[in-house]
């Protein structure tokens, strides 16, 4: 790996600076650059991948001699804001094992998405603006994962939110896209407020924003335990918003209004896992607070189940994938809730690849047919063989079929949850079953059966090479990235151990095959696949239709997303708008009409009355003047 060590951990800031420059150049001058500057962003993406691998190599060689300290190092920090004796904020970069996993995921998926977008976005409006936004997002995301400082993290956190907002609303001419962007921004903002409160609470008590310092203080029982619990729950609330966990999950399905590669990058692989990243980063503190950790576990579990059931009935390819993403993020939070950093990060690692693959595959289908509803697709197997193959690999990986990547990581989560409690284990297995069912349903509905919309079918064609190559690369990763769990694969890349021996909290996990869990997981996955096959493959899914008629209440419950959106809408309509109308009434009637217009009217009236004092007759004026003189002279007389 020494070959790559040109850019070391010291130079991690390059990952922020270079994409920012790419963003500025393409955003400002994109229209005048040949091909509207997409090659600049592609070069930025290649650079980022190269730099990330280089940093990982540096990390590996540095810690090889130091016995793999679980903590990384503040590899760079300089004074950012300094108010002497009061406030010192440093700009710092920080690289540890969590960071390198994130770096690899973000840079690889980012590059794949940029390349794919060159084909997908060909001829779209605002082509250069799209690419510059991708660079902006990458800059923010790299800053987020390399920061060693909570304030800087918050900055990057908001920046990725902004990038997400702009990209969801990329087709802002479309009403639904504009509203989805707004919804995503506002919903995540609710969580962000919690994050900000949490950060400020921690800063208030400790006087620092530095993450490692805060962890050290927390471990030394520096904080009051209730205070720490409250601030960490606020921090987790930020993660809930960003990672689309229940009850703030509503924005992610709507965010599918954005271009599909964006969904792959932001809403599957990188930004939405920022919450997982944050909780992983702070996990040493959460380990100290059982209340907060149980909350994480329960929220994760609820989300995993809810989203899986919603994904079962959704009629839009991308929405199914979005619900699946929410559900898998729930899995990661469950893993964090039971205290397994390794399992959560490993699932994040594999999930990024196969979910990005699924999104890009669905983008390929949409690009070919201009249809998103699975009810108007079908039988595309022969028309789009490469898309079909890669999509199926992704879906099976999601379903948890060995030896694909999803199986290994999900297996780890199930294993640790099983150690924690059997109820959670059972519920998580049920979610895994649902995952397998809807994955199968998606593949069958899109690629098998009869074409439901003949026009779309006739129109369908295989995507260009520039879109297929990222699909193939991601498919390879979706297949092999699970093997990183084996120690010998890690050793192949110069590490001492497999994934579990690199990313861990207190002590490295020793990987060994747990046959009971494994066989249960495999059988559940296979059962799910078979059920999907049984329900949707035969007789054009008549059984599935019957099943939906069998219990229409439950079906409608799923279809209407548990009425959570309706509830929120009603809450906004009744409560927020009601309150707003009261305030508007107050503003209009009291402040504006009475306060501002009223005072003006009083002055107007008084002026109208007083103007008749101006008689125009000079003797009157002289009289008034003499009265004034008289008064003044009396005052003088009294004073002397």
């Amino acid at each position, binding site marked *: 790996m020494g070959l790559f060590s040109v850019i070391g951990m010291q130079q991690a800031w390059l990952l922020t600076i270079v994409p920012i420059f790419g963003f500025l150049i393409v955003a400002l001058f994109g229209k005048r650059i040949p091909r509207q500057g997409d090659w600049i962003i592609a070069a930025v993406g290649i650079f980022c991948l190269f730099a990330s691998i280089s940093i990982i190599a540096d990390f590996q060689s540095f810690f090889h001699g130091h016995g793999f300290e679980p903590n990384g190092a503040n590899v760079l920090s300089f004074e950012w804001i300094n108010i002497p004796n009061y406030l010192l904020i440093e700009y710092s970069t920080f690289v540890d094992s969590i960071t390198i996993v994130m770096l690899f995921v973000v840079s690889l998926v980012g590059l794949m998405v940029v390349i794919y977008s060159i084909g997908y976005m060909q001829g779209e409006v605002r082509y250069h603006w799209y690419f510059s936004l991708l660079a902006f997002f990458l800059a923010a995301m790299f800053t987020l994962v390399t920061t060693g400082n909570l304030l800087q993290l918050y900055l990057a956190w908001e920046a990725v939110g902004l990038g997400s907002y702009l990209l969801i609303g990329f087709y802002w001419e479309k009403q639904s896209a504009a509203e989805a962007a707004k919804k995503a921004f506002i919903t995540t903002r609710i969580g962000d407020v919690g994050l900000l409160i949490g950060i400020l609470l921690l800063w208030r008590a400790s006087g620092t924003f530095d993450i490692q310092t805060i962890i050290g203080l927390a471990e030394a029982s520096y904080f009051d335990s209730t205070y720490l619990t409250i601030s960490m729950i606020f921090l987790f609330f930020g993660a809930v918003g960003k990672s689309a966990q229940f009850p703030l999950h509503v924005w992610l399905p709507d965010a599918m209004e954005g271009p599909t590669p964006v969904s792959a990058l932001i809403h599957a692989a990188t930004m939405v896992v920022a919450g997982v990243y944050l909780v992983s980063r702070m996990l040493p503190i959460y380990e100290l607070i059982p209340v907060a950790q149980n909350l994480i576990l329960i929220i994760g579990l609820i989300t995993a189940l809810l989203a899986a059931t919603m994904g079962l009935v959704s009629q839009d390819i991308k929405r199914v994938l979005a619900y699946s993403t929410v559900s898998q993020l729930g899995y990661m939070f469950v893993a964090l809730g039971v205290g397994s950093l390794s399992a959560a990060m490993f699932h994040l690692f594999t999930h990024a690849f196969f979910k990005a693959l699924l999104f890009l595959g669905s983008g390929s289908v949409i690009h070919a047919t201009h249809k998103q509803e699975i009810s108007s697709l079908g039988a595309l197997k022969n028309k789009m063989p490469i898309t079909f193959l890669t999509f199926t690999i992704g879906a099976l990986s999601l379903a948890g079929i060995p030896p694909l990547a999803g199986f290994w990581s999900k297996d780890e989560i199930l294993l640790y949850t099983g150690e924690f409690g059997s109820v959670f284990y059972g519920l998580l297995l049920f979610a895994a079953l649902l995952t397998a069912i809807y994955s199968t349903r998606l593949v069958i509905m899109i690629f098998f059966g009869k074409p439901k919309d003949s026009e779309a079918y006739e129109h369908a064609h295989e995507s260009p090479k520039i879109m297929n190559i990222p699909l193939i690369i991601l498919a390879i990763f979706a297949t092999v990235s699970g093997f990183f769990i084996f120690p010998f694969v890690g050793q192949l890349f110069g590490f001492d151990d497999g994934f579990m021996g690199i990313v861990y909290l207190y002590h490295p996990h020793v990987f060994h095959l747990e046959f009971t869990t494994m066989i249960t997981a495999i059988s559940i996955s296979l059962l799910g696949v078979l059920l999907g096959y049984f329900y949707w493959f035969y007789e054009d899914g008549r059984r599935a239709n019957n099943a939906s008629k069998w219990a229409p209440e439950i079906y409608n419950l799923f279809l209407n997303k548990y009425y959570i959106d309706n509830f929120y809408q009603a809450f906004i309509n009744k409560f927020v708008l009601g309150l707003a109308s009261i305030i508007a009434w107050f503003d209009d009637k009291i402040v504006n009409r009475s306060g501002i217009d009223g005072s003006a009217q009083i002055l107007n009236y008084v002026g109208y009355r007083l103007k008749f004092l101006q008689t125009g007759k000079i*003797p*009157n004026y002289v*009289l008034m003047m*003499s*009265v004034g*003189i*008289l008064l003044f*002279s*009396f005052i003088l*007389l009294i004073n*002397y």
Partner: protein
Amino acid sequence: MLSKVPLPQQFDRLIVTGGIVTSVFVILILTILLILKFVGFISYTEVFFWLISSGMIIGALASVFLKNIVHAVFSLLAPLLGIVAIYLFLGSEFLALAQLLIYGGGVVILLLFALMMTDVQDNPVVIDGSQKPVGFIIAVLIGFVLLYSIFTADIEIATPSSLSLADLGSNIFTQFLIPFLLLGILLDIALTGALLNGKKHKNLQSSDSDE
């Protein structure tokens, strides 16, 4: 035509009645002042001063109260000429001379010219404004304030010193040179303004005024 000009008869009547009234007042005031002198309140100089002062005050009252505008203007001569004597009491000959020339010779004549150019010939009797009572009260109150402050003030006893013309000249042309020059400019401007104002502008003529 001659019968339409009532001025000679008016002057006759004015002179006769004015002369009789003034003589009566002068004799009355002189008697009072002489009594005061012999009682010992005032000196001869003060008798003379108050005699002149009472003439001034009577003239002033006449110029303010008389209905006939010509009579009012002529009555103004009494206070204006009385001031000449007052200035002489205060030992300032030059001021007295200037006052006599400018007011007695200039201003009153100017006023009479103005009267002549307006409609005085047709209706010399003026109607006063409606604020007469209010004005009276205010004037009395101001007088009260002034007199009260004069009588209650602690006035240092001093003797007036007369001012020689040479001193006045050297003061004006040394210490007060710039104000004096500015005064000259002001007079120039006033003269020009009066000329421009009095001139007939073609565009400002009212339609019925004949040329």
